[in-house]
């Protein structure tokens, strides 16, 4: 056994000496309780270790045992529907072992090694196999087919493969003779180091939107399957509500939710919702397609780091089966804070606001694991990463927000002023952007309407003009505006109230199908045209407003898809009939 002794303890950082040939990122067991730690700095005979569990009670002289492997996830059937801590310990099992509270040093299996799964082979030996190839499948639950992969680092010829039947994740199901002549036993589960991205053949250009059912996202600032986005916002601006809503409604096949340094009650609420709510596409409980990683704010700080990596590794694993995966991380700022504390305890030179100089590269390393790829098995899979950012004081100029924005392609900026007005989702339309608009245009054209881009541009430009006009109003009052300008304000109001504002708590409103979203946008754009034309023909704006058409459009929000499409056609006719019958004023 390779052992060393503790020479220093400071918070969750421990320095040990005497471990022979320590490896960077190697897992170690620290102290009598065998706390899990990871080596993250080596200088001579000294190693710095971040400990993933509460360090109370450690002392200098305690032994440290190096395990000779990197911090890894165990991947195989049984991963879905689990709630893990940052070290992939199922929290329900910890509860069985340790009661209602999480205590240090609890040892538990990551996957159930006793449960039998019904395995169906899809390959015939003898034949050549390569890493990442699919050799069988297991229906993990009624929703998800778990495809069993040859571990990515194994290749050679398949010597044997078991017949269809029930096996545990640790039973040998196949034997592969490697090119070196070594015979490798393959099980349904395999280990993968969490900090090493899983390999794939090539990255592809992402071109399909990840549908969230949230109009301001899908219509205005879309994200793609395989894309990256960040949602910064001060507390109370609705980050968690919006991200949880995405996790429930998205059309991804598998959703990984990482609660990193956030509230315990929120995790409890999410878990309850996942169990009771069903995915409307499949009719199955949401929990069947989900994995939750919960490391709440009061749980050990270092485990925030591992929770993010664990989440992305599990996500890549499902991507490798050819699924579209969405990873939601709430909040990446808490992860960055853990990095900062670690760096400071290791007495590294601080960069901006005390964060380590490698903050940007770590963030990039994390987000770069997203993408649409051709997997090793030749399938197409994708992983989209959406991260919440919690800037101190709501100040977006702070390092984590800035470095994140530099990295991601979609920026959903949450605005406290909108939140104060209870305009949710509080995504600021002037500040936010998506660099995927070009990518998804074809999808919209083929699947919804070729009018998407033009509508989007029309409506956004009204909102921009509204902003300019409001600056004038604040200076000299609304009396200074022309009829046309007032009309713009009215249209902008309708865009905000009907298209952008969406009640996540109302079941009729929470999910908006892209077709419904487009229908609403069409009506609003039509209203815009008619209003501006009428005003230019000297029709009184006051008269038009008294028709209360805005309120009629608003009713579309809560209609189901079919009804909404039907009503939107009628409403367009109504708009043209009613507006065109108003008399034109003759200028005096």
């Amino acid at each position: 056994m390779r052992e060393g002794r503790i020479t220093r303890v400071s918070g969750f950082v421990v320095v040990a000496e005497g471990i022979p040939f320590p490896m960077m990122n190697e897992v170690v067991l620290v102290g009598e309780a065998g706390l899990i730690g990871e080596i993250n700095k080596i200088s001579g005979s000294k190693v710095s270790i971040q400990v993933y569990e509460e360090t109370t009670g450690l002392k200098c002289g305690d032994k440290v045992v190096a395990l000779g492997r990197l911090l890894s996830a165990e991947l195989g059937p049984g991963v879905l529907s689990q709630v893990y801590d940052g070290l992939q310990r199922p929290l329900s099992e910890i509860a069985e072992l340790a009661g209602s509270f999480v205590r240090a040093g609890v040892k538990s299996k990551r996957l159930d090694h006793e449960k039998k799964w019904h395995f169906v082979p899809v390959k015939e030996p003898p034949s050549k196999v390569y890493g990442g190839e699919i050799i069988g499948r297991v229906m993990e639950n009624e929703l998800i087919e778990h495809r069993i992969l040859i571990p990515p680092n194994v290749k050679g010829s398949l010597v044997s493969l078991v017949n269809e039947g029930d096996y545990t994740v640790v039973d040998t199901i196949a034997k592969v003779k490697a090119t070196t002549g070594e015979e490798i036993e393959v099980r349904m589960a395999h280990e993968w180091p969490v900090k090493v991205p899983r390999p794939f053949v090539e990255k592809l250009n992402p071109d399909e939107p990840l549908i969230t059912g949230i109009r301001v996202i899908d219509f205005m600032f879309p994200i793609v399957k395989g894309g990256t986005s960040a949602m910064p916002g001060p507390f109370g601006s609705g980050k968690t509500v919006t991200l949880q809503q995405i996790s429930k409604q998205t059309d991804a096949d598998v959703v990984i939710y990482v609660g990193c340094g956030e509230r315990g009650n929120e995790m409890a609420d999410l878990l309850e919702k996942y169990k009771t709510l069903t995915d409307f596409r499949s009719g199955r409980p949401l929990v069947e397609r989900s994995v939750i990683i919960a490391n709440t704010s009061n749980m050990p700080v270092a485990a925030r780091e591992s929770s993010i990596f664990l989440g992305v590794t599990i996500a890549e694993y499902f991507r490798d089966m050819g699924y579209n995966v969405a990873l939601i991380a709430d909040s990446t700022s808490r992860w960055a804070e853990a990095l900062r504390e670690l760096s400071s305890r290791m007495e590294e030179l601080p960069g901006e606001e005390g964060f380590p100089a490698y903050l940007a590269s770590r963030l990039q390393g994390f987000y770069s694991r997203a993408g649409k790829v051709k997997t090793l098995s030749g399938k197409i899979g994708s992983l989209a990463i959406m991260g919440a950012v919690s800037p101190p004081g709501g100040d977006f100029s702070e390092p984590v927000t800035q470095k994140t924005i530099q990295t991601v392609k979609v920026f959903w900026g949450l605005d406290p002023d909108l939140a104060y007005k209870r305009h949710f989702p509080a995504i600021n339309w002037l500040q936010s952007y998506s660099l995927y608009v070009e990518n998804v245009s074809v999808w919209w054209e083929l699947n919804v309407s070729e009018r998407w881009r033009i509508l989007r541009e029309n409506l956004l430009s009204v909102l921009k003009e509204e902003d300019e006009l409001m600056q004038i109003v604040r200076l000299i009052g609304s009396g200074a505006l022309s009829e046309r300008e007032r009309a713009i304000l009215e249209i902008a109001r309708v865009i905000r109230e009907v298209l952008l504002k969406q009640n996540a708590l109302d079941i009729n409103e929470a999910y908006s199908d892209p077709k419904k979203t487009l229908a609403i946008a069409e009506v609003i754009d039509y209203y815009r045209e008619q209003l501006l034309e009428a005003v230019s023909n000297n029709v009184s704006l006051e008269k038009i407003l008294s028709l209360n058409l805005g309120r009629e459009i608003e009713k579309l929000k809560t209609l189901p898809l079919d009804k909404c499409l039907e009503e939107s056609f009628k409403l367009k006719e109504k708009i043209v009939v009613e507006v065109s019958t108003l008399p034109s004023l003759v200028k005096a």
Partner: protein
Amino acid sequence: MTQSMRYKSISSINGPLIVVSNVQGVKLNELVEIEVGEETKIGQVIELQGNVAIIQVLQGTAGISVGQSYVRFTGDTLKIPVSEEVIGRTLNGLGKAIDGGPEVVGEKFDVNGAPINPVMRLPPKDFIQTGISVIDGLMSVIRGQKLPIFSGYGLPHNLIVSQIVRQAKLLRKQESFAVVFSALGISNEEADFFRVELERANILDRTVFILNLQSDSTIERIVAPRVALTVAEYLAFEKDYHVLVITSDMSNYCEALREVSLARNEIPGRRGYPGYMYSDLATIYERAGIVSGKKGSITQIPVLSMPDDDITHPIPDLTGYITEGQIVLSRSLHLSGIYPPVNVLASLSRLMKDGIGKGYTREDHFEIYARLFSAYAEGLRNKELSSILGEETLTLEERQYVKFAEAFEKKFINQGVDEERSIDETLDLGLEVLSILK
């Protein structure tokens, strides 16, 4: 073994920290006793470097001498004895009785507690009626929630807190409840005020006081809220009490944290507060909640002062990221004589949506909340416009909203310190002020 380890090898003293050399077998976070003449001070090991231990002294380092004072390592973490007997008692920040009564005896618990396993939490759902309209109607407190009051110097947070404590009740059930009040660096007068208020409400015998007053050790403040929560956890999760924990003032706690951090030469974060303050505060606030299989609950209402009324200051900012909403007090409402001066737009209860409506309060609660909120926001906006541009620039409708906002503040928000309104009265009042808009 370590029980008997006594060392005379203090090598340096810096503010609240002492450094002891040539020690062996010392554990992180271990409790130490420092003999200073007749007196024994206690401290905690916060860092170990080879045979050197850095200790944070909880009761002030005055009198400790290099080479004179003895340091004894107890081999155990800071634990306090708790039993049901603690109800009605007054303890100091370290959990020792200071009311002249007998010492509290009972099972010993580590003051740091342990994180509640997220899968064992039950989502909070039960509405607590505080009898204060603006809170019940617009930012309801839910049992198991942590909902802080963001106040400022000179604002009436003490009155509000004591009114909540006196009036708080559940609508449907009658169950045993207890109050744990922890005073952190507040004055003797303020602590007495609470005592009198609780006596007046006849609940003094259901209250535990943890006192760390202005005049007491500042570093003891780091432990005091943990002592309070250890008592609360015992009562809630061992003895089925519904415990309301009031902590005033968390800003003083944060100051103490900063003092220790700077003495350790740590790299300071924003405004000198340590970078780990978020995580540290979370280990306090996250001790609220309801646990599956246990009958009791812990609800926390911490009070903090926003320096210069600045909500982006690290103390309220980090708190807001952890707690489930916030009740923000407004100086301008206070100056215009409104009590309780709650800034409605900036306040929020995140758990409210799950604890109101049919079966909890009243079916129309959510709708009334939404209407009051948006009408008030509109009213304030128009009021601001009219103060810049003159009232005549407003349309008739806009003026109505201004009128509404004024009535809302005077009738709905404003209420007496002893006035208790049922949720029905609150909601009816809401409808009444809304009728101005028709």
